[in-house]
């Protein structure tokens, strides 16, 4: 099975996009009008796929990491075991991880999601566990003394107090996944990376800048949005926001 792609062609081969303007034919640095004309048909769908890939990866990684962190609080061996497992997954260069996973689950979105979820685990697990371990024991004791059950203590006392590091972890995981998801296009996952690989095949500069620029903007927007969320959700911690 071949999934090899050619490296960027030396001479630009301009793809057929209907009527080609002079700018597109000459492959100038950035053809603004072509980008605007083709945004909704060519750039918007991969952008939405990219957001979806990221949201699913973080959405699946979060409950797994949370469950693992709760287990790790009770069983010390599990903390070591899961940390090693997650670190092992995280240590593979993304490109190699994708290529190896393809052998097991084939070239599709599902394969990409497995790899993307794997990359969230180490970051989310460590941050959730750090957050829960950082809750002052006095607060927990007070809640128990007031008659809170273990579940109520977790949901109403520990979780809110652990939010800053948890949201910080979600933020790091999200921007990491946005980055790794561009590489996932290599195994047919779609997203903005597919346009970049497309441009590597054709040498079309507007597509390089359009897709690369959108990926950068998406990452910065997601980062900014999560910083805002972090502040809004933890009004008491504004002075000591975890990095």
């Amino acid at each position, binding site marked *: 099975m071949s999934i090899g792609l050619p*490296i960027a062609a030396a001479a630009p081969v301009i793809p057929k996009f209907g009527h080609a303007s002079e700018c597109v034919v000459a492959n100038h640095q950035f053809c603004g009008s072509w980008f605007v004309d083709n945004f909704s048909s060519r750039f918007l769908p991969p952008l939405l796929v990219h957001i979806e890939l990221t949201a699913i990866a973080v959405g699946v990684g979060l409950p797994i990491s949370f469950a693992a962190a709760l287990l790790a609080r009770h069983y010390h061996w599990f903390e070591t075991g899961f*940390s090693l497992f997650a670190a092992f997954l995280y240590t593979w260069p993304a*490109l*190699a*991880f994708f*290529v190896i996973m393809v052998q097991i689950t084939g070239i599709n979105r599902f394969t990409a999601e497995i790899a993307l979820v794997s990359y969230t685990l180490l970051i989310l697990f460590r941050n959730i566990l750090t957050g829960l371990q950082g809750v002052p024991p006095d607060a927990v004791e007070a809640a128990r003394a007031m008659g809170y059950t273990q579940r109520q203590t977790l949901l109403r006392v520990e979780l809110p107090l652990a939010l800053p590091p948890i949201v910080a972890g979600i933020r790091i995981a999200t921007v*990491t996944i946005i*980055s790794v998801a561009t590489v996932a296009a290599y195994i047919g996952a779609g997203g903005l990376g597919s346009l970049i*690989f497309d*441009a590597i095949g054709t040498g079309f500069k507007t597509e390089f800048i359009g897709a690369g620029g959108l990926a950068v903007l998406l990452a910065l927007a997601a980062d900014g949005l999560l910083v805002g969320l972090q502040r809004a959700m933890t009004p008491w911690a504004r002075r000591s926001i975890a990095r």
Partner: protein
Amino acid sequence: MHALIQFFGDNAHLLLSKTGEHMELSLASIGVAMALSIPLGVWLGHLHRGSFVAINVSNIGRALPSLAVISLGIAFLGIGFTNTMVALVILAGPVMLTNAYVAVSEVDADAVQAARAMGMHPWQVLLRVELPLATPLLFAGIRTGTVYVIATATLATFAGGGGLGDIIANEASYGVAGVVAASITIAALAFAVDGLLALLQRLITPSPLRHRADSTRTAASVTDLSLGAS
């Protein structure tokens, strides 16, 4: 497993030459990134100025998708070594800058004041008090950036930059054994360079501070050696 060992045996020459390319690109990028970001970070930290920019630049650096930066690089600089090197410098420089800034600006103010009171020139304060005390954090930034560069240099293959990514992105020719062998080589390179930097850090840290340097290291060890985020 057998195929993997056989690949290492049969393709030792290929692996060696690709490793050479990989390291050439990585070391050039790390060198340029250090030359640009460390002096700036140290100087800003010494003056206690520009903290907002110096601290937030690494958040932006971390958020930048590596393949997207390489993609922009291809459009502006064409394919090849230079484009990939510039992309890697943009990706690794910020974390080095932030760590250098924080390392120097957070040096115990009492120590700096004592040095000034003893009549030290600002340059002497920087070179003989602030920098030695800043070594652990400064090196943490260099090491994080270095591991990141070695891992991300894999993507150079898409921009004609060569390196071990050429093997990983060509599973059709080299097989899964080749992909795994190249990945193991990248991980080994990252560990080896990180180890060398740890040794260098130990050598230039004044002996009374060595214990502290070691403890900083263990706190950051797992995330420092994370190649995945490339």
